[in-house]
């Protein structure tokens, strides 16, 4: 007996037309090849949330494809992590503690002083500009958080790669993500000490990459309230939707 037991919307095939020169790639939500029965070893594929080549127009639809319910090929959630993906649990600092000091300098060469930002919640993150993966993902979350929060918030980014992140490089990078974001730098010893005061750390790693050394670093986002109290830590993978309510809560203090 044969039956359709796989969602055809999940069939998305890259098809190799011939072995050599002409690799033919076909990605389709309903598929160039419809699976009429399960591929025994194939894991379920998540419902279509995004498609490669969003700028490519859908192919013309021939009539008479029985039983096919065409999904929306471009949505929802284009390019975003799958909606069902598990999010890490934020860690409340209980009891809240005075935010450890950041004896570091801004890209303008000023010593950073928390007291200047009393009255504004701070989102603090440690990272580096040569990181194309984790850091921009986190900064993207911060950008989205700031946009959605609707309350004043100050983002502070501490470089863990002061050798390559000169003040100019650092500020140009941050300006891409948000207005008025503060970049902090210093000597490695100072930066490491600051990171450790937040339970974080970092270290250079030689990976053999053509990109040069990488910097392994903790990837938490720290939330500091209007009174300078460190109240919560958001692990990597936290979403803006998790941070925004916390931010609003402390904005109402």
């Amino acid at each position, binding site marked *: 007996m044969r039956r359709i037991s796989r969602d*055809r919307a999940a069939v998305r095939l890259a098809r190799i037309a011939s072995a050599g020169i002409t690799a033919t790639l076909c990605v389709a939500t309903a*598929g160039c090849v419809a699976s009429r029965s399960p591929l025994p070893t194939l894991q379920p*594929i998540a419902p279509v*949330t995004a498609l490669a080549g969003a700028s490519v127009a859908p192919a013309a639809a021939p009539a008479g494809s029985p039983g096919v319910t065409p999904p929306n090929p471009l949505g929802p959630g284009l390019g975003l992590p799958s909606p069902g993906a598990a999010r890490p649990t934020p860690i409340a600092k209980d009891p809240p503690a005075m935010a450890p000091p950041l004896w570091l300098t801004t890209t303008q060469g000023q010593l950073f002083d928390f007291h200047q930002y009393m009255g504004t919640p701070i989102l603090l993150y440690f990272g580096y500009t040569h990181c194309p*993966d984790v850091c921009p993902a986190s900064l993207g979350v911060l950008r989205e958080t700031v946009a959605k929060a609707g309350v004043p918030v100050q983002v502070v980014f501490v470089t863990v790669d002061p050798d390559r992140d000169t003040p100019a490089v650092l500020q140009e990078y941050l300006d891409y993500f948000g207005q008025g974001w503060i970049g902090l730098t210093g000597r490695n010893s100072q930066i490491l000490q600051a990171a450790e005061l937040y339970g974080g750390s970092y270290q250079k790693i030689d990976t053999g990459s053509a990109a040069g050394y990488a910097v392994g670093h903790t990837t938490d986002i720290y939330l500091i309230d209007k009174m300078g109290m460190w109240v919560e830590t958001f692990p990597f993978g936290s979403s803006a939707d998790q941070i925004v309510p916390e931010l609003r809560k402390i904005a109402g203090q």
Partner: protein
Amino acid sequence: MRSTLLRPAILATAAIVLGAACSSSGSSPAPSEMGPAGTLGPGGVISVTDAWARATPPGTTTSAVYMQLTNLTGSDDALVSVSTPAAGTAEIHEVSAVAPAPAESTGMGGGMASAAPAGSAGMGGPMMGMHPIEKLPLPAGGSVKLAPGSFHIMLIDVKDPLKDGATIEVTLTFEKAAPITLTVPVKMG
């Protein structure tokens, strides 16, 4: 009893074609019955979905490309190399937890790595770092997601800034399956 069947068909509205058209596969005569593996193309079939490249912030020349790779064949394969005219080098990278080195050998700050003060220890997550890998295994019938914080295709020496809304060509080379060239949209991510 045959338990599986693949039937090529052209289906409504949703076919998205990247690079070369898929019509050749859809319109060419095909066996009415095929097994789950090895019949969809020489060397196997890998599907690529959700591909995107991260736009480069100003001043940076590295980027990352993400996608979901699904090995629709019955035999193991692997992504072994990647190339793109958009960057000098493309590497397959994995992000993994980095074990803290002893303070004296961190090479940072002259062995400054003191123990975290009491009260903060244990609060933080692990250090995460990226490193190149020789190949990305694609187990038979399995699906591997390249995503921030896990695997990515690292673009190094990006020639021109990658702007949101642009596209780049990326060629994936596999151990067994024939190479695939796809057009990848650039997004701010």
